């Protein structure tokens, strides 16, 4: 089978990428989706708050997904459900398998990676104790409650205050569970502020910062957990232990982009995001292979996933058009985009001044909570951008725009650096 563009993963990123590629002239598109329906994780995110940026209204996850699924259907974009991509090669051959078609191979002129991310499991956490039933990642619990209709427990402790942990605290409380506490290792919550209000405060669920689980009691089933305060290095402080009886422990302790397929073809990965290194065209280090959404870096808001994925789809379409008209990959010089002081990472990691559009969105996260600081962008030593922000937190992705006309003069710069600067008194 031959296709112009194969998209791996039919979640929000894959759908938006497919739609943009189709609208930009790619005819033969195939989305591979391993679940029995399109929409990805949005299907289990039944809460509202999606789409404020994209549709200027507040939708639930399934409604947001449906808008994109309906559009993809209308555009006649082909997809295969219950189909798992097993491997890809550098020359863009995809091996996939499904119960219906068995194992098969697709040759693609371009590939978009949109496989999303996975939850960090208990095994990554070094919590001592037995392996009793009743310990779930928050997303697994979300699937049980919202898709399967099962309650995983009645008395719940949640470790980790990322958005999924907060959303599940409320969800379990709504279904009649007693959510005793949400414990967070860091001195701040990893979730959106509004989720702290409407998921915890609304239901009188306490949030304990600088706190972790140091022991899990119970052999067959969780009987309780021991919490302890931690010092500034995250180490438990002796004497602060508190035992909390519960039958369920939910873990919301981070998401990791799922890049097994990308690694197979040697796509360069960023050690901070654990996602591919991409240039301003969302292209990875392997020609014709693009990445977007949570496989690239973990997002907080699906609206920005859709926006980023549409760019990837558009650039993949441009690449295919150039290829069709016989334009071979030009030698393009790129300036590295560097995460400077206070910034954990940037996406993209490089920019070509010649090939960029008038405006380029650079997304990044700060390292810690910052108040009244500036986001600054330097080309070598020249400051191009200086924007004041009242508050920034690692839990909320930031962005800064680079203007082509400003960068024109710095085509030969060694680097473009995004950094945080303190306000000058």
């Amino acid at each position, binding site marked *: 089978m031959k296709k112009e563009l194969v998209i791996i993963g039919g979640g929000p990123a894959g759908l938006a990428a497919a739609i943009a590629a189709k609208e930009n002239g790619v005819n033969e598109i195939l989305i591979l989706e391993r679940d029995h329906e399109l929409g990805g994780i949005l299907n289990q995110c039944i809460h*509202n708050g999606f789409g404020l940026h994209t549709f200027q209204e507040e939708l639930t996850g*399934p409604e947001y997904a449906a808008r994109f699924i309906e559009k993809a259907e209308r555009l006649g974009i082909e997809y295969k459900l219950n189909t798992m991509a097993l491997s890809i090669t550098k020359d863009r051959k995809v091996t996939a398998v499904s119960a219906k078609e068995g194992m098969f191979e697709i040759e693609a002129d371009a590939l978009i990676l949109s496989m999303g991310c996975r939850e960090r499991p208990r095994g990554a956490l070094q919590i001592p104790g037995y392996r009793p039933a009743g310990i779930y990642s928050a997303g697994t619990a979300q699937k049980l409650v919202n*898709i399967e209709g099962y309650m995983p427990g009645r008395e719940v402790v949640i470790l980790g205050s990322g958005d999924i942990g907060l959303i599940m605290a409320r969800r379990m409380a709504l*279904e009649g569970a007693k959510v005793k506490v949400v414990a967070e290792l860091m001195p701040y919550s990893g979730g959106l502020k*509004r989720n702290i209000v*409407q998921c915890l405060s609304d239901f009188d669920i306490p949030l304990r910062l600088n706190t972790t689980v140091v022991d899990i009691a119970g052999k067959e089933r969780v009987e309780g957990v021991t919490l302890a305060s931690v010092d500034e290095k995250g180490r438990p402080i002796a004497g602060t232990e508190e035992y909390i009886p519960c039958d369920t422990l939910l873990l919301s302790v981070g998401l990791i982009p799922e890049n097994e397929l990308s690694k197979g073809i040697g796509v360069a990965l960023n050690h901070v995001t654990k996602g591919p290194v991409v240039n301003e065209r969302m292209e990875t280090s392997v020609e014709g292979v693009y990445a977007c959404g949570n496989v690239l870096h973990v997002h907080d808001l699906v609206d920005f996933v859709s926006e980023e994925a549409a760019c990837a789809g558009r650039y993949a379409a441009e690449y295919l058009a150039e290829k069709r008209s016989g334009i071979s990959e030009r030698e393009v010089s790129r300036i590295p985009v560097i995460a400077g002081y206070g910034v954990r990472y940037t996406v993209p990691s490089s920019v070509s001044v010649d090939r960029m559009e008038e405006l380029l969105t650079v997304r990044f996260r700060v390292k810690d909570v910052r108040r009244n600081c500036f986001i600054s962008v330097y080309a070598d030593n020249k400051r191009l951008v200086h924007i004041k922000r009242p508050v920034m937190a690692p839990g909320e992705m930031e962005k800064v725009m680079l203007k082509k006309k400003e960068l024109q003069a710095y085509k030969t710069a060694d680097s473009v650096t995004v950094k945080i600067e303190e306000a000058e008194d």
Partner: protein
Amino acid sequence: MERKELICICCPMGCALTAEIENGEVCRVTGNTCPRGDAYGRKEVTNPTRIVTSVVPVRGGTSGMVSVKTASDIPKGKIMECMNALRGIQAAAPVRIGDMIAENIADTGVDVIATKNVDVLQRRCGG
């Protein structure tokens, strides 16, 4: 004059609001960066409301559960009553987004509607 500190939940900005209350009425909201924050601040003090989302079982569908929401926001104090009223309610496939699942939930005057399309499960006959 009484002051109440709030965090706006209208969007991910999460603005820190201060509502100034006089004689049980909000006379001023500060800290907001858009008009929605002003409206939220006034409402949150006098009559806080939320949209409630949940799932109900669906018969004969490609999924066992269908997600639902209140068609508009309901008083915060009615949330658990709404959840209790939803227990025992079932939908039947096919369900389309926007279909009414429960009328006037918990006497709020608000309907509960489906937020997901669930098609009829086509059973294959043997032979």
